[in-house]
């Protein structure tokens, strides 16, 4: 397999792992952040504090915990997920869910303050309020998701531990960069780094274009 093919392979794997993790994490974090914005309950502040604190979760620790859970002697060892892209996705979901939830909560809280009286006066249900906020705050939520994407695409510590950086199986751009740097091939490592930056910019641009974020008169 030539270097171009290998580059394609690990680039696509990076994208697949990160976008899958992003999708799943967003499906958890966006409703959670919005729910925390509209619903008052006991321990709400505590839950928000925990989510904010988890934004700074050390990836290596996440990797270690996921490794233990998925290892043969761990509770989910029977699933044989260790050293697979699925394990990497799980680690990334754990890392980026608090990031997306926290940013989503901040922006939804502001939107809720703006909409509160209207939605209450229209006698909307809790779910209608949450869906309205998600719909009308989608541009802000996109920013939250992109922050999660940025964190995930550049992640190396956790996925190195749970993925194992196995060639043709779990090697992604960041782990390849770490490998090439360790081998002293800085030119290749730099090249892979530029590819990583390029992919990150392209995905951001594509999402902004598709959702028409900066189009005049829209949000």
């Amino acid at each position: 397999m030539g270097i171009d093919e290998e580059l394609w392979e690990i680039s696509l794997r990076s994208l697949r792992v990160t976008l899958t993790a992003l999708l799943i994490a967003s499906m958890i974090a966006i409703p959670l952040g919005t729910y925390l914005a509209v619903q008052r309950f006991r321990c709400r502040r505590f839950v928000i504090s925990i989510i904010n604190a988890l934004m700074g979760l050390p990836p290596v620790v996440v990797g270690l915990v996921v490794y233990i859970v998925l290892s043969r002697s761990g509770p989910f060892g029977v699933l044989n997920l260790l050293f697979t892209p699925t394990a990497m996705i799980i680690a990334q979901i754990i890392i980026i869910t608090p990031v997306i939830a926290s940013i989503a909560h901040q922006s939804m809280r502001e939107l809720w303050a703006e909409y509160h009286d209207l939605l209450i006066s229209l006698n909307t249900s809790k779910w209608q309020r949450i869906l309205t906020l998600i719909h009308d705050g989608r541009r802000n939520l996109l920013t939250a998701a992109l922050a999660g994407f940025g964190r995930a695409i550049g992640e190396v510590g956790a996925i190195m531990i749970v993925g194992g950086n196995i060639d043709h199986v779990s090697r992604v751009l960041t782990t390849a960069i770490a490998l090439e740097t360790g081998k002293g091939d800085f030119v290749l490592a730099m090249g892979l780094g530029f590819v990583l930056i390029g992919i990150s910019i392209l995905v951001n641009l594509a999402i902004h274009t598709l959702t028409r974020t900066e189009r005049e008169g829209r949000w």
Partner: protein
Amino acid sequence: MTAAFPLILSGVQVRRQGKTVLGPVDLTLCANGTTIIVGPNGSGKTTLLRVMHGIERIRAGDVVWENDDPAKHAFVFQTPIMLRRSVAENLAYPLMMLKTPKDQIDMAVDHWLERIGLESSRGTQATRLSGGERQKLAIARALIRKPDVLFLDEPSANLDGHATREIEELLHEVANAGTRLVMATHDMGQARRLANDVVFLLNGRVHEYGPAEPLFATPSTLELMAFLRGDIVS
């Protein structure tokens, strides 16, 4: 005449941060006409409207409707709250929340866009409208569900004469069609033009309440007399 009335408030009290901002209020609103709530700034007009609409937590007392159906109340806020959507989508929103069939929503939206003169702005983002257009849109959005009762909190505050006239015409039409209006205003001219009965609030309490004409012609308290003269009343 609406089945929701009479509305009876007995001993209603609202406190915020340890301070009583309204009450105790005892008031009975009957089924007909337009009630205008007047009073100086901070007298509790907005709070009283919010209590009646059921969006303000009361500390004491009761608010009792003859037939209470929250879907039959609507509220127009002093500063119109526009959803981050187009004009047509803002109008459609209350009906969507009621799961009204789409063809009926489209018909109602077309009707109200024409009625408030915003057909050409159908696809415009609502937050880009002028103050008067926003307030007309807010009133139309409140009316699109055909409420029995419409609460309005100083709907023409900060608007020019032309926009105020348009809004008053719309309110006249709505009132004539049978919707019960309860409106707060500090514009005494507007109160005289629209009111059938008047509630004069002072320091969170109902100071006077009665039919508009005699109340304006022969106020029974010095405070209302001073307020009508334009003096500062506290």
